[in-house]
């Protein structure tokens, strides 16, 4: 078939276009080869860069944390009601507030409560809600042990263990996010996400637990917090030693804590190492047995 001068051969036209596409693709690959990789060194290559970026937490994120924590607290109290002893509740609140005041989340209002459960356990919901069971209080011998347990739970909150694990944040309110939600049909995302977050926190507290490292981190920071507040550093270790005995002799009493935490013996060893490293294993600070006995017994 003959073609007029200047007329392009369709096959050649498509071919040249393909070569241009291939050249563009190779240019894009070259950019990748030259990519600086320092920022991503610690991550898996399959991760995506935008997911590794640190986003500063906003006031809206704080409010989201508190809202989720408040709802979780309501569910915990629906499961185990408060012990009807206002004096005991006031005392635990005073001890907890004193410890929390030495932490680094002054933006939170802290709430401490004793729940009416025989089980030996304590919980922390995001946003400043801390619970200790009547069964746990029964096994404590002094205020330093109570402060140590509360400090462990406070550390979960100040270190944002649950918040980070479940990525509890406010829905984005940027124009881009609004457009995305509109096109993606995700306008109900905020409501659904809130409900899911509450369910997930309950699962973490009563079923799955946090990561082992988070629990050991809470022990570490909790112990230091109790020491800064002025309590005997051996308070939490003494309590853990008793918990370890339960894990040996009466597993039912510590069923949830055993399921959701590393073994008490392992935590105890880690704390003893920490105290030695920090030089606080012989530190003499009050345990306040009498005051504890007056309010708890």
């Amino acid at each position, binding site marked *: *078939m003959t073609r007029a001068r200047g007329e392009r051969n*369709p*096959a050649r*036209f*498509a*071919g040249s*276009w*393909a070569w*241009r*596409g*291939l050249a*563009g*693709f190779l240019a*894009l*690959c070259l*950019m*990748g*080869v030259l*990519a*600086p*990789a320092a920022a*991503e060194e610690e*991550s*898996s*290559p*399959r*991760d*995506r*860069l*935008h*997911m*590794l*970026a640190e*986003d500063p937490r906003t006031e809206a994120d704080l409010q989201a944390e508190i809202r989720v924590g408040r709802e979780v607290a309501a569910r915990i109290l629906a499961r185990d009601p408060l012990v009807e002893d206002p004096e005991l509740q006031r005392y635990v609140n005073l001890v907890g507030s004193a410890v929390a005041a030495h932490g680094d989340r002054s933006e939170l209002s802290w709430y401490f409560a004793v729940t009416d459960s025989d089980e030996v356990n304590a919980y922390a919901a995001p946003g400043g809600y801390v619970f200790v069971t009547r069964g746990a209080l029964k096994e404590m011998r002094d205020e330093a042990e109570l402060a140590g347990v509360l400090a462990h739970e406070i550390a979960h909150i100040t270190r944002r263990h649950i918040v980070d694990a479940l*990525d509890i*944040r406010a*829905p*984005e309110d*940027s124009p*881009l*996010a609004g*457009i*995305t*939600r509109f*096109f*993606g*049909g*995700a306008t109900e*995302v905020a409501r*659904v*996400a809130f409900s*899911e977050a509450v369910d997930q926190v309950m699962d973490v507290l009563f079923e799955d637990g946090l990561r082992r490292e988070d629990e050991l981190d809470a022990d570490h920071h909790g112990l230091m917090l109790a020491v800064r507040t002025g309590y005997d550093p051996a308070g939490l270790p003494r309590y853990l030693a008793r918990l370890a005995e339960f894990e040996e002799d009466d597993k039912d009493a510590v069923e949830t804590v055993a399921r959701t935490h590393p073994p008490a013996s392992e935590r105890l060893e880690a704390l003893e190492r920490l105290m030695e490293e920090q030089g606080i294993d012989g530190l003499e600070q009050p345990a306040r047995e009498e005051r504890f006995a007056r309010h708890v017994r």
Partner: protein
Amino acid sequence: MASSNLPGRNALPVMCDECHRLSPEPLRQSLLLLAVCITGSAMLVPAKALGDEFHYRDILIGDRAAGMGGAYTAVSDDTAGLYYNPAGIVHAGDRNLSGSVNAWHETSTTYRDVLGDDDWRRDSAALIPNFFGIVQPIERGVVGFSFVVTDLIREDQDQTFTVEEEPWEQFTINLNDSQTEYKIGPSWALELTDDVSIGGSLYVYFREQEVINNQLVIEDFGNGGPPDTEWRYVQDQNDEWGLRPVLGIMWDVTDQWAIGASIRGTQIISADNYNILICHGSSATDPPDGTREAFLCQEGEVRHEESESDTRREHPWETRVGVAWFHSPRWMISADFSYHTEHRDVVRGRTVQATWNAALGTEYYLNSRWALRGGIYTNRANTPSQVERFDHVNYVGGSLSLARFSRNSSITLGVAHSQGSGQGQVLPVDRPPQDVRASSTSIFLSSSYNF
């Protein structure tokens, strides 16, 4: 739309997208041949549709995947993975994801020198809700649900050709081709080991196609009498639905290398094929000597024929294999190869040839907020290279997209363009095949959200 009255004649109103005044013979004959051929020459030969049962990569699916030329089988770690390789969605992590894509899609096919020295061109353009998917981790594995539009044609062609000699003649070709192929269904994926996952999607497959073709020929001898008018109407409708399971496997060979594979097939459960022809003949295309090769209807003929059947077509099995190399969270590259088996299409009366496609894609993060994606891909025909009735055009395409990320969401703007050349047969089969040049362009806006 253009409108014109033709002075000196019977002032017939003409409404057309394109109005052409062309030289006479052999144009008259070409127009008649074209008219007969695209409406189907008999009841058993359906009208020729523009799109595109002849290719398998007409529209790139997904957000990230479309920007990477569809090379996604070994990546598949977001909602688009539900379509490409459901085993990959285990890599979505513990996030709930939703993703959607809307695309402006247009195609153009030009048949060279069909109308004498002039080309004949067919166009389609439509806005497509291309994809929606959602992924959610559960206790055992990850579940998802997706809706995919894999092909869509909206052709509304309205052309009028005028032959300026005695007798004066006007040919009007009005062609409406509407086709949609979509899939909707749930998916589930499970991590078997740290490195191997499997997954499946069970799509319900729908295809709706309706081609309506009107041909009107007006012949005026200029003697003051009423013009001869010949009209032929053909409607061809094929609807079918069935199940299209997709099974996939993903193997993370190392931290940086992954291999993925998927297989899919379609089993048609129900089909409805309907055809109607109405023809009103006159002497306009039926000269007394009977030497014309083609005519719409014979003089004096009034035909009305309908046929209906529930004949179910076969569909090919498709196997995809992909490999991906993750250099770092900033850059990755992936490649896909797919093979489609040969099968018999009893409705179209053709053997659908086996064919293959390949794609190569990459993603590069400019920073933690912006990512650039690019890809090249093929879209090869499943028709014989020795053209008999259906076009044989192999496309080569490229895609490019830019994504902007915020904390929980991303929005992507991209373009995919493919083009190719080959041969077609819009004139009767005893004529030599015509050169064809075709192109397809999609501009897509996509978004994804994790929560």
